[in-house]
């Protein structure tokens, strides 16, 4: 798109033609060497994925069928590691999905107006605003979450103020509740929501808004009929990029949660690090991965794969 905002008919035409051609396979004359070029070019990336993703994943899968803990664990086709972990940690799995879902919706509700404002009203300072959004995230996530635990503690500034104002009773507390955990997740993942939304909104050609006005649409209608559908892929992407890592989060529970707010990520961590129970830890990881994969696939199906893929690629 043109940066200057001056109409550029060539660009629009080109875009149109590309779109029209994309469905038609074009047969080209190629020799073998040319044909191998794409494979050679992608080889480093493929190799990278094989070594650092595929092989470890396969290894973890075999570990999930082991029996015993370190140092005595051994391969045993133990499929019931899956049923054991699933039945043991089902509540935490469901809770993790719930918390992540609520937190993601919160980040979307907060993030959309922010991204909208920056892309349409940010003017020349857009980058500054984006940077401001990201600045807190140069500090370690653990420290930031811990600071929230201090601010929200029983003798911290928030609860104390509410108590003095007489709005809450003496036994009221924020930390060690599910609300605090959801709040922490929403806070920590906000930039992951805002950035894809911003990218989608930023790509909207301002002239389309003008066109909407020209056709006698009021602001709300323009938003509904033009902006919202055009930026919808961004919403889908923002949802995925926030929700998927949020389900596996374990920091927020540790600092802000109470006795019955545990999330699945914490259970996996305990199995691996404290119990040295790699088989069950690996099985639980795969359960989580499967839940997320199935969820993401259904989600993409329901919304149309292209929209999600396009937005995620953006």
């Amino acid at each position, binding site marked *: 798109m043109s940066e200057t905002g001056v109409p550029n008919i060539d660009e629009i035409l080109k875009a149109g033609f590309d779109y029209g051609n994309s469905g038609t396979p074009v047969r080209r004359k190629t020799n073998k060497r040319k044909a191998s070029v794409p494979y050679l070019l992608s080889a480093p990336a493929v190799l990278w994925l094989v070594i650092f993703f595929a092989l470890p994943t396969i290894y973890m899968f075999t570990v999930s069928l082991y029996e*015993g*803990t*370190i*140092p*005595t664990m051994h391969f045993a086709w133990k499929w019931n590691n899956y049923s054991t972990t699933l039945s*043991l940690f089902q509540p*935490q799995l469901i809770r993790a999905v719930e918390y992540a879902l609520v937190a993601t919706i919160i980040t979307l509700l907060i993030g959309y107006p922010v991204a909208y404002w920056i892309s349409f009203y940010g003017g020349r300072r857009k980058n500054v605003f984006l940077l401001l959004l990201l600045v807190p995230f140069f500090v*370690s996530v*653990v*420290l930031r979450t*811990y600071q929230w*635990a*201090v601010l929200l*503690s*029983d*003798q*911290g500034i928030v609860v104390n103020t509410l108590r003095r104002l007489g709005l809450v009773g003496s*036994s009221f*507390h924020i*930390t*060690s509740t599910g609300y605090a955990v959801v709040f922490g997740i929403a806070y920590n993942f906000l930039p992951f929501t805002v950035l894809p939304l911003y990218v989608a909104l930023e790509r909207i050609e301002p002239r389309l808004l003008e066109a909407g006005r020209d056709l006698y649409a009021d602001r709300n209608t323009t938003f509904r009929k033009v902006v919202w559908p055009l930026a919808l892929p961004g919403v889908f992407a923002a949802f995925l990029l926030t929700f998927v890592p949020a389900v596996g989060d374990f920091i927020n*529970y*540790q*600092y802000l*949660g*109470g*006795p*019955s*707010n*545990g*999330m699945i990520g*914490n*259970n996996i*961590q*305990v199995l*691996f*690090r*404290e*119990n*040295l129970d790699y088989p069950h830890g690996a099985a639980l990881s795969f359960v989580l991965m499967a839940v997320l994969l199935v969820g993401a696939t259904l989600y993409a199906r329901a919304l149309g794969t292209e929209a999600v893929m396009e937005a995620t690629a953006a």
Partner: protein
Amino acid sequence: MTERNDDLFQDPSFVRGMTQKRLSRRDVFKYAGVGAGALSMSSILAACGGNSSSVSAGTGGGSAGSDMFSGAPHKIVNFANWPYYIDKSKDANGQIIHPSLEQFTKDTGIQVNYREVIQDNASFFGKIQPSLASGQSTGWDIIVITNGTTLTKLFQSNYLVPLPTDMHPNFDANASDAVKDPSYDPGNKYTMAWQSGLTGIGWDPNQVKALRPDKPTITSIEDLFDPVFKGKVGMFGDNQDLPNFVLLSLGVNPEESTPDDWQKAADKLTAQKPNVRSYYTQNYINALNNGDVALTMAWSGDIFQSNLSGAASGLQFTVPTEGAIIWTDNMCIPIGVQNPVDAITMMDYVYKPDIQALIEDYNGYICPVPASQAIIEKIDPQTAKSPLVFPTPEEQSVFHTYRVLTDDELLTWNSLFEPIYQG
């Protein structure tokens, strides 16, 4: 103790948690970066391990032991310990030094590569286990492991080198009865204590008084179960201290407890759950200072250090009438050791009363050398008098150690207690 003023954080339990969920119990004022650096250090050392003259310990770890100690020292020892667990000072250039280790090098000519790489028994074991299993050097000549599940695994897998009984004269002469011939390692075949510490109750006098004016002191484990403190009670979220501590409250000696006792303890904990603010794996000292909890399970050193660091609340540590859990961190030599003579020399050296006094006055745990008390008395009478550093035999009579669990028992144990503290 002046060194501590330089430190960043007031809550050792939090700082440990910066790098990971914790099962450790060090009084650590650790910077966040230390963990990552230490991790890579150990892997580098492990990677380099094969190059130097490696002494084969054999996978059996049994009979091969005595030969390796007959040679001359290599003048270097690689020592893996927990953070902030040894005396510290600054030299003329402002560099941090460990006076006790400097003295060791002066006396023996052996350089000490002292690294604070252990923050949790299980994950440290997980890290060195592949080397141990393949018979390769871990890169360490001395490691420090708490009595409990991990140490049991090291024993069972024959991953430790039996110590030569004739090479620790200082230990024989000066070690306290508590660390000589411990139940988990009869005859000190594989281990010598570094320090011991207690699991008891930490509490904030102001909050306890506000919530329970008629009985403003904490004396018993039952206080953790008093409904008056609903929502203000902290418990440990781990599978050692939490179950063992509650077994004490049932009048059961954890070491001799049966699965029936475990069930009772689990039931008691389940009933208590609605009153618990959080099952802490870290950060519980700040929860005390913030008012999130009024009383919590605690490690003696953490409370001691929090008060020292200037957090003004004057927290208390109580050894309950039912008793407390005592744990001991043990120096041991892993198989594949490269400098065994240097290692045993170092391990024995810290049992010299004057050297132990240097270490003890810094970390304030239970001293394994009674003769150090007189020396500390001269420089720091308060520490010398502390029952948490030099408990009398009478005081020690209520200390109990963790239940030793077999693999099968551990499964039962975990299935009873994990659902309680794992949210």
